[in-house]
């Protein structure tokens, strides 16, 4: 890799969780949220970071931003140890947490930006220029004088993304930036991120549960589960690695016994006249559709792409199976 901008070398984070189990009785448990995690991200890359709930994604981002200290291993961003030099690094990074806001709730949007201007000591001309550009690209013109608490979720998210970019950060961390957004807002946010990465060369690390975010934005995806890196490569490869399956949803003219499809396709669910068939994502659906149409009273059909959760779940199940000695 030409220029490793983010470097993790066997990074771990262990949480000590104390739980009351009775009067004066406590139980201590250690949660290994991130486990011997190693990867590098080059300057200007746009990487998707995915995994099931509790996999350790947010914990990784917290360590990268310096607000959590790793329990072990070595971590560098732009050559800086984030938890030691949090404030210095802060000038070079932007962070957007989908479920949180950096904006001041009671104040008009523009007031938050003015505070950012001072906080990051952005030169006046630079601030004007960036603000104008972000307001235009994210369509914030009518919202600047609205108190943040009156913004809709999608509007607030766009406001937050602009806030994270006013100071021209070299790296942008996005933790579920499209959560709860409608299709139009998602599309707009994705288009904006693609342009940001292409035009400014901003390094982007993105966590999401929405496979489309990754498909449309990231040439590289990392999958993590139980704090361990399970896959690192292009999205297409993920489907192979996960042996993922697509689903053919078939509507017959009336109720029928499960379709006796040729292997490896198989019926996974039947509900009245509707049947669900799973088949490998790597194969075309056409022969299967033809085969069914010849033998059954077909009324309608649709193909569902494998969803990321299923792919990850299957990858994990596979790994657990292999790990048994």
């Amino acid at each position: 890799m030409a220029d490793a901008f983010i470097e993790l070398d066997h990074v771990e984070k262990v949480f000590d969780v104390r739980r009351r189990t009775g009067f004066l009785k406590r139980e201590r448990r250690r949660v290994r949220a991130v486990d011997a995690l190693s990867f590098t991200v080059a300057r200007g890359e746009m990487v998707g970071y995915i995994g099931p709930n509790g996999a350790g994604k947010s914990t990784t981002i917290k360590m990268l931003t310096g607000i959590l200290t790793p329990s072990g291993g070595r971590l560098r961003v732009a050559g800086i140890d984030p938890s030691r030099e949090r404030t210095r690094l802060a000038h070079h990074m932007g962070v957007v947490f989908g479920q949180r806001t950096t904006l001041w709730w009671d104040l008009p949007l523009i007031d938050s930006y003015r505070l950012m201007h001072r906080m990051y000591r952005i030169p006046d001309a630079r601030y004007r220029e960036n603000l104008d550009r972000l307001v235009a690209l994210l369509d914030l013109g009518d919202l600047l004088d609205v108190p943040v608490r009156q913004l809709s979720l999608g509007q607030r998210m766009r406001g937050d993304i602009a806030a994270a970019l006013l100071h021209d950060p070299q790296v942008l961390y996005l933790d579920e930036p499209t959560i709860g957004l409608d299709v139009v807002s998602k599309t707009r946010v994705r288009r904006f991120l693609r342009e940001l990465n292409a035009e400014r060369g901003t390094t982007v690390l993105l966590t999401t549960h929405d496979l489309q975010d990754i498909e449309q934005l990231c040439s590289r995806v990392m999958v993590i589960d139980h704090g361990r890196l399970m896959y690192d490569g292009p999205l297409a490869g993920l489907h192979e690695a996960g042996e993922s399956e697509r689903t053919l949803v078939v509507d017959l003219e009336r109720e029928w016994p499960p379709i006796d499809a040729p292997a490896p396709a198989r019926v996974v669910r039947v509900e009245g006249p509707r049947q669900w068939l799973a088949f490998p994502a790597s194969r075309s659906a056409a022969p299967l559709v033809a085969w069914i149409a010849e033998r059954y009273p077909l009324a309608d059909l649709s193909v569902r792409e494998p969803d990321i959760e299923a792919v990850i779940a299957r990858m994990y199940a596979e790994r657990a199976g292999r790990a048994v000695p």
Partner: protein
Amino acid sequence: MGSGRLYLAVAVGGFRRYATYRAATAAGVFTNTAFGLILVHTYLALWEARPGLGGYEQAQAVTYVWLGQALFATLAIQGGGFEVELMERIRTGEIAVDLYRPVDLQLWWLANDLGRSVFQLLGRGVVPFVFGALVFPTALPGDVATWGAFLVALLLAVVVSFAIRYLFALSAFWLLDGQGVAQALTVTGLFCSGMTLPLNAFPGALGEVVRVLPWAAQLQLPADVLMGEAAPLGAYAFQGAWAVALLAAGRLVQAAATRRVVVQGG
């Protein structure tokens, strides 16, 4: 230089936020005036029975009462300032947002709290104080210099008050639940800052102790500076020493908290 403007902007923000709560301010003015009336009559009876209690004349005791009511919100004597919000941010993990900014957490909240104090001095303090001074015989100085000396003591008092609450609030990193901490703040604040009875009038060893605790820097010392009962420089030294010690302790705890402790939530 650049950061001076930032913290000024933060202080202005703190001022403006409290300025929007008009109804709460009006209710506060009413409460402090009513409380002042009750307390004044109690004090008058007490000083009737024990003339010169705590070294105060009756008129000084009355002045002390109205000063206490005027500064009650300014000094957040029973808590309820920024620390409630800070503890809540720590509990919910919202603090993460504050931590990945290039700002000093302590200075940030200090600026914010100073803005709040200034608003509450003007919005909540002036009316009860003027009311008390017009209706009752008080012992107020006639010279500008003493008023100036008082304002300096008041500024130091606000900083000490902030530093105490900041330390208490950081405990939320370990305890998470701020309820008990807030209650402890209320009780110690009301009792140890001399809100119920001037610290000068506390008897024996108890008096000796409360008069050297940091809470003495809040109401007792500015009151004594205003009424000419304490030399300003001595008062400043006491307040300044506590301010420095508590702010330094706050920084140490803050460093420990952000290094070792966990930021909550995904």
